[in-house]
């Protein structure tokens, strides 16, 4: 017999308290007598009035002491060791997803899971080893295989839940893989089941699942599942916000949503929600200078992380394009026609005096520098260069033909476009052929050493392309392709999702900041940086520093917006092999505290009978 929660035996102290009660608080029954004349003299001899007397053993005291002792024993969770305490390798998989922060269990689901995981680790037979994995957006091995039980317990104590959506599949596969090759490998899953059932082949590994959701979980949870802001159709400088609220309650409810712009309260609206239904709210007339919007549910519920959501309004500056040409009417004209493009022209001889890094894109017309600038580049009328050698000219190649569904040719019709001659080049590995003529490349596009490059292998003035209706469309597509990528591709991400940060060319340091503190520092490189988004919901900024000054500040939001996590109803994890799934229990042990509880109940009935028999 082992005790899985030996601290429960502390309840035995209550027996001492019980005896103390019997010593100090003797319960006298009033009984009228004709006279206490004779009794009064007896009490002096018997000393019954003294507070401390030798405890008198009574059946009632015995029953009550046995009752308390039984309860203490049940609290200690006695178990019979059935597997002769064989050494095992236990992989403890702790669900750290957002729903584990739900407070339907006290203090929350994660703390319950941690407590049970501690019991498992504490109850491992001597010589066993353990591994602890925290599963949130992705699995995180907190403690690799070790027989150091104290370390395992310390790691469990240091673990915490995240706001990330759960994805237990990879974590479970990892856990099974870690347990598979070990003798008596076991996986203990502590989760509320709020995730998609993983496709898993347990392969002989025993998987123990301990569900954690409360009985009435989810009854009062509401979540902001979407927030977005768009320019108003009538006035594109002014935005309106769209918020969607989902209810997971079993009865109709009402949600009040407050919208804040740059931390100032703008408006609050309420929406009636049907059981399990959703409702949408539109907030118009937002301030013109608003940058960050926050929607907040005003009523508390079981899960806090889905009660707030943020979005960042996009306000882009015009794209500055530097045209290096000796004079090209078509190019100058078309660049001035494209919206949100601000063209600048410079002759080739003055190119050296220009800081090309200050422009968003550079267009070379008829010339090709030996070294390409670090900015996105369009080369029109390509000439022989070390960058892309020209083998010769192809004369009168025929009509241009677009290849595939290249986004550069969206809405562009090239069927009647002809060129007089083409530079004959071999397409480099980094470039793709967008259009060709007679099997010779005519337009190339690709990413060369961290910048995007588009090359027209013909002279516009030797083509009817500038005269076609497709020319401004093609140029708009090309400039859209070359446009400098934003520092952040998405202003709103999920907790723990992949985040792509594009460093500015001169950036020396990139800081990820949240809640007024630096969360992470990154060293910029020529290539975009990939990192994990924070696992806590909130508003964050990417601050890029160049020459000791702030070069750019880009805000982004981390929102939960995940129906699986917000739905707190009790769910059962379906693992592939039923015979490998246990809903509770411990390796090699059989708990028998329910029998103790039954015995205690019997004692309770006995005490009741004893009391009433006397009464």
């Amino acid at each position, binding site marked *: 017999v082992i005790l899985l929660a030996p601290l429960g035996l502390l309840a035995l102290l209550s027996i001492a308290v019980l005896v103390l009660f019997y010593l100090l608080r003797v319960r*006298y*029954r*009033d*009984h*009228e007598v*004709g*006279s206490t004349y004779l*009794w009064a*003299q*007896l009490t002096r001899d018997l000393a019954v009035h003294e507070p401390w007397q030798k405890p008198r053993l009574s059946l009632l005291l015995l029953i009550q002491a046995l009752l308390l002792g039984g309860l203490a024993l049940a609290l200690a969770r006695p178990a019979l060791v059935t597997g002769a305490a064989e050494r095992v390798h236990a992989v403890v998989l702790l669900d750290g997803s957002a729903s584990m922060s739900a407070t339907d269990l006290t203090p929350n689901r994660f703390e319950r899971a941690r407590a049970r995981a501690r019991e498992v680790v504490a109850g491992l037979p001597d010589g066993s080893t353990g591994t602890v994995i925290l599963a949130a957006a992705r699995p995180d091995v907190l403690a690799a295989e070790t027989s150091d039980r104290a370390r395992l317990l310390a790691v469990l104590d240091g673990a915490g839940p995240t706001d990330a959506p759960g994805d237990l599949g990879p974590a479970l596969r990892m856990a099974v893989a870690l347990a598979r090759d070990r003798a008596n490998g076991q996986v203990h899953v502590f989760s509320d089941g709020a995730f998609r059932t993983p496709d898993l082949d347990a392969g002989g590994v025993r998987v123990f699942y301990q569900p954690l959701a409360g009985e009435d979980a989810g009854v009062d949870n509401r979540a902001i599942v979407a927030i977005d802001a768009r320019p108003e159709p009538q006035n594109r400088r002014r935005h309106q916000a769209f918020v969607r609220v989902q209810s997971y309650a079993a009865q109709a409810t009402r949600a009040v949503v407050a919208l804040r712009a740059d931390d100032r309260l703008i408006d609050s609206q309420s929406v009636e929600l049907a059981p399990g239904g959703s409702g949408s709210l539109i907030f118009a007339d937002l301030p013109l200078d608003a940058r960050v919007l926050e929607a907040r549910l005003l009523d508390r519920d079981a899960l806090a992380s889905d009660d707030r959501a943020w979005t960042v309004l996009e306000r882009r500056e015009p794209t500055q394009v530097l045209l290096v040409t000796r004079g090209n009417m078509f190019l100058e004209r078309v660049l001035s026609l494209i919206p949100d493009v601000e063209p600048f022209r410079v002759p080739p001889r003055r190119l050296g005096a220009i800081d090309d890094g200050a422009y968003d894109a550079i267009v070379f017309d008829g010339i090709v520098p030996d070294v390409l600038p670090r900015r996105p580049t369009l080369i029109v009328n390509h000439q022989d260069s070390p960058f892309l050698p020209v083998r010769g000219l192809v004369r009168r190649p025929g009509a241009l033909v677009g290849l595939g569904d290249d986004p550069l040719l969206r809405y562009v019709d090239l069927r009647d476009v002809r060129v007089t001659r083409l530079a004959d080049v071999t397409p480099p590995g980094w470039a793709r052929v967008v259009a060709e003529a007679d099997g010779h490349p005519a337009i190339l596009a690709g990413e060369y050493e961290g910048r995007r490059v588009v090359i027209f292998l013909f002279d516009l003035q030797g083509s009817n392309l500038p005269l076609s209706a497709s020319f401004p469309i093609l140029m708009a597509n090309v400039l859209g392709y070359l446009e400098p990528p934003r520092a952040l591709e998405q202003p709103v991400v999920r907790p723990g999702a992949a985040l792509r940060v594009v460093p500015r060319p001169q950036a020396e340091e990139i800081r990820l900041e949240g809640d007024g503190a630096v969360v992470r520092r990154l060293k910029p490189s020529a290539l975009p940086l990939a990192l994990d988004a924070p696992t806590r919901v909130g508003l964050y900024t990417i601050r890029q520093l160049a020459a000791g000054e702030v070069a750019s500040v880009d805000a982004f939001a981390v929102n939960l917006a995940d129906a699986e996590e917000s739905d707190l109803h009790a769910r059962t994890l379906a693992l592939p092999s039923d015979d490998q799934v246990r809903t509770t229990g411990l390796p090699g042990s059989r708990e028998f505290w329910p029998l103790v509880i039954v015995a205690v109940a019997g004692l309770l009935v006995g005490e009741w009978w004893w009391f009433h028999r006397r009464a």
Partner: protein
Amino acid sequence: VNEGTPLLAAELMHRLERLQLRSRARTSGLSHGERRSRAHGSSIQFADYREYAVGDDPRLVDWNVYGRSGHLFVKLFEDEALLGVHLLVDVSRSMDWGEPNKLDAARRLAAALGYVALARFDRLYVAPLDEEVGPTLGPLWGRDQAAKLIDGLSGWRAHRATDLGRALGGYARSTGRRPGLAIVISDFLSPSWEDGLRALLRRRHELAVVHLLCPEEVRPAAPAAGSSQAGGVGPGDELRLIDRETGRHVEIHLDAAALDAYARRFAEWTGAIERFCAHHGAAYCRVDSDAALETTCFETLRHRRVLA
């Protein structure tokens, strides 16, 4: 007292007429009575007959009557002395308790003894006692006063605590120089019982003590007759004993040790009263409230030489 139950049944009254109160008193009286006086033989007039009783002078037997009827009768003369009988009954609140109730038993016993006195033409005084002596009933004599006696006893109620010393002392003073036979019926649960009895003795009263107790006072842990289990006490009880007279309470664990101690204390107490009576030539008789009245009168009191 149960209102519907007479204190004395007619049949019992008829049997009681054969008894008389024993007394060594030698008094002289002016009225009729059935006690022989030392002054007999001079200026005497025949007054009545009565049945011969053990102890009567055989010379007073009327042999003529015996010859006619076959029964022994003695002659009674006008100058025979009257015996003053003082029935002093404790009516304190401690008496109004117990199963059967001690006060009811005391009333019945007083009625029986009083009727014996009336039937023998003794001069009867009946007085209730609690903190002091109550209004005295009497003097009564003759059988026709029995109704008055019984009405008086039936009207008594227990209201106050006991102070036997003060009550008996007060009564002794009120009797002046006319001593008689004083019969005290009480539970004697009063610290001053000895003072009270001494006061009577000082006034030269001949004393008879009827110590009336209920079964629970004799054996505290025994089930009370006629009482429910819930109201009784038993070994192992934790009891707060509340004094019916004073309201004071005593907390006690009724275990074997306590019961033994009580038994010792009880024997000590009753022994002290009995020794006091024996020392002063008084009759002492302990009567339990559950004892039948006939048994008490015709066996217990006769055995203890209170009645003859």
